[in-house]
């Protein structure tokens, strides 16, 4: 479990995170939703330790970020996997080398074992063997996202973070990526945190949903509670689009 308590973060005069308390549970897809500029990405990067925080604490199964020694921090890093919005694959490396990089740095596996693990991860995200030697530029956006997921899970992490994994993808590919993250989370019992704008993701895979508004947690609940909630923040956020307004009134009528 990842526990966040009283988190504050400012950039100069700009107070981006204003005291967030939330728990993210193991074996669940925890979704952070909110409008652009609500602080989602800063929040995610703070949890990852990419931004130092001004106040508050973040703990990973009791281990508090910032209070760990170098060795402990290094071992925690190996328990983390991250899928970036733009995939962040290394252009100079092939697909296979991209996925193998964390193993090259942090495992004592033999070359054969590494190759086997890389093949397993890439096949798990449905990448064909004949694409292993290609460079990221030769793949479609959806395939790049799948390779990024394979790289994120190659060290068998306990915590998986995804920053807008569906951005820039067509609706069909977006569903495939959502399902993949959901399956992997449940299969390996990971604590997964996903930043998203996509309501489809919320309704498909949101085991636990946190709504952020102006740097604060505005609401949290399960995916089935989202559509029925009377909370004004949720109603304002979810039912901005006409499609969801109609869906809500249809649900209410039924």
């Amino acid at each position, binding site marked *: 479990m990842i526990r966040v308590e009283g988190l504050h973060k400012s950039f100069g005069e700009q107070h981006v995170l204003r005291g967030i308390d939330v728990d993210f549970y193991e074996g669940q897809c925890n979704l952070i939703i909110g409008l652009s500029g609500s602080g989602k990405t800063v929040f995610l990067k703070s949890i990852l330790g990419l931004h130092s925080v001004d106040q508050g604490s973040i703990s990973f199964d009791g281990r508090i970020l910032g209070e760990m020694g170098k060795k402990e921090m290094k071992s925690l890093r190996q328990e983390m*996997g*991250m899928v970036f919005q*733009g995939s*962040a694959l290394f252009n100079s490396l092939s697909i296979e080398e991209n996925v193998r990089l*964390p193993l090259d740095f942090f495992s004592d596996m033999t070359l054969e074992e590494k190759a086997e693990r890389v093949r397993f991860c890439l096949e798990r995200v449905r990448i064909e063997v004949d694409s292993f030697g290609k460079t990221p530029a030769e793949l479609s956006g959806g395939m790049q996202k799948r390779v990024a997921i394979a790289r994120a899970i190659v060290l068998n992490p306990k915590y998986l973070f995804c920053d807008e994994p569906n951005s820039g993808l067509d609706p069909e590919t977006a569903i495939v990526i959502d399902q993949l993250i959901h399956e992997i989370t449940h299969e390996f019992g990971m604590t997964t945190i996903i930043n998203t704008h996509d309501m489809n993701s919320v309704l498909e895979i949101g085991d636990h949903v946190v709504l952020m508004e102006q740097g604060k947690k505005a609401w949290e609940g399960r995916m089935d509670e989202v559509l029925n909630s009377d909370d004004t923040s949720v109603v304002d956020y979810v039912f901005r689009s006409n499609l969801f307004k109609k869906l809500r009134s249809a649900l209410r009528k039924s």
Partner: protein
Amino acid sequence: MIYRFLEGLGQYFLFLGEVFHKPEHWKEYGKSFFREIELLGFSSIGLVAFISVFMGAVLTIQTAINLGDPFVPDSYIAIAVREGIILEFAPTIVSLILAGKVGSNIASTLGTMRVTEQMDALRVMGINPASYLVLPKIFACLVFNPILITFSMALGLVGGYYAGDFLGLVNTEVYLTGYFDEFDPFYVVYSLTKTFVFAFIIATVSSFFGYNVQGGAVEVGKASTKSVVTMSFSIILFNYILTNLLLQ
């Protein structure tokens, strides 16, 4: 302006501190080093060869025309061309050209990695991006630039010889003896010392600008341009300082 300069200088040294962290996985750094040698070194051979041959040729033509006196032996032309190439053209001018080619490549590569979150990806994995991405580039430049400059000296001299012969400007036998007349090997040491310092400037200054890019594609371009300008200023300045220190 002075404050901004000092602030930038301080950031540059802090960046170097981050880069020169002891690597934990030498093998991975080794692989990266050979990739950089290929990318930054081998890919420059053609350009350096082309420029060196023609600069050697032009130096010979200009010197021969300016010293076109029957009482000045052709070996003097060769000596002037040799000193020009070894002392200044190969180490300084070729380093300035490499600053444009290699330096802008480094700055734009690192800048793109920064804005596409590839550096964040390394940090999340527990890899120090400054050290992993920059250290191999520095060593590649320190190792390969002196080789390129030595190669440039040789080709400059060859280009000068053939230009003189082809255009009938010099007596080639006398000219060739001039290349070896009163040759001071320290000039090569001086030249390679400068090259070494310039290589360090090229690798670290371009990396500094690329590594600290914030924003998007426009900022990557700006950082690349800034890095080339700063490298050129630094190379010219250090050329003056080193010449004063080593040749006086």
